[in-house]
């Protein structure tokens, strides 16, 4: 299955081109031009990794990260930032973002971070699935409670 990536940035040209490049590399990419749009898409669709710009009009990157983590805590988020906002990106990591990347970014570095984030999410999903199976095996009645 392709890695499902949501890219969030208010720079339309940037996000469209980067999205095309990731699609060529076989990622399943969706874009959002604002924090609000990203939150709505996270509510409606399944994503593995989110690339999130720190500085955006309206809902900021940090506010967007908080909302996303409330809705889907297991989605891995990579903050995207200019040099001036590295501190905000680090604040994002304290709030649960996996990593950050500086703009303009090296494609290989971005891909390595997306793959690492996907591997982490898959591992967590697998652990949760295994725990659920174990619970079912040890106490079949628990399935009726859900």
């Amino acid at each position, binding site marked *: 299955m392709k890695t499902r990536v949501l890219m969030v940035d208010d720079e339309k*040209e*940037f996000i469209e*081109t980067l999205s095309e490049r990731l699609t060529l590399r076989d990622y399943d990419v969706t874009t959002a031009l604002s924090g609000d749009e990203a939150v709505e898409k996270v509510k409606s669709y399944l994503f593995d990794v989110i690339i999130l710009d720190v500085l955006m009009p309206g809902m900021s990157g940090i506010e967007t990260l908080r909302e996303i983590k409330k809705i889907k805590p297991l989605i891995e988020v990579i903050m995207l930032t*200019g040099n*001036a906002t590295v501190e905000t990106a680090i604040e994002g990591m304290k709030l649960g973002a996996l990593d950050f990347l500086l703009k*303009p*970014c090296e494609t290989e570095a971005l891909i390595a971070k997306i793959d690492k984030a996907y591997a982490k999410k898959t591992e967590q999903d697998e652990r949760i699935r295994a725990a659920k199976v174990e619970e079912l095996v040890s106490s079949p009645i628990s399935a009726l409670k859900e």
Partner: protein
Amino acid sequence: MNSKRDIIGEQGLQFFGKMSATISHEINNALAIINENAGLLQDFTLMADKGMPLDPERLNSLAGKVIQQIRRAEGIIKNMNRFAHSVDEPGKSVNLSDIAELMAALSGRFASMRGVTVEPKPAAVPVTITTNPFFLENLIWLCLDFAMDAAGPGNTIDIITVKTENGAQIRFARVEDLAKAPLDKFPSEREKALLDTLKADLVSDVGAGALVITLPRYIDT
């Protein structure tokens, strides 16, 4: 208590830093787009090496996008240069409409972050005064910053320059919610220090939803 000179010096440095940061951010964004378009061109070249035909129209469109971002960066750098040179002389003859346009451009990202649009409305005839350009830019920024907060998202602020009998006025108009803004704290000591140095007045016209700076035609610097 800080002297007027201290307030202006500290405020001026903060202002210069803030504008430099927004300029570098904007240039960085243009570079990021150029970087991705160049990367996409490389991707197409690698695909062509593997036998996929190149689409000349697509390549032309990518080149167009790079040129567009280079022009954008050129515009930003031109404004940065004008802004940097505004500290060259403490007193200079300036065209107010040009300064209003420069400040609207430099404030663009701050406006966009708040969902506000800033529209400079140049005077029909050039409005020229002799003043300290950097202090005036700083005062315009402080008024604009206050007006943008007061206006709120979805609104537009006009910067209108007008020639008067004794000098000129800069009006920040269409500030819809000016009455609800903290006018008891504005102008603060920093705006007052700049107004005093520029021999200018600032009036909040709540009824008209406008902040009005009145400037003399000439100040002796």
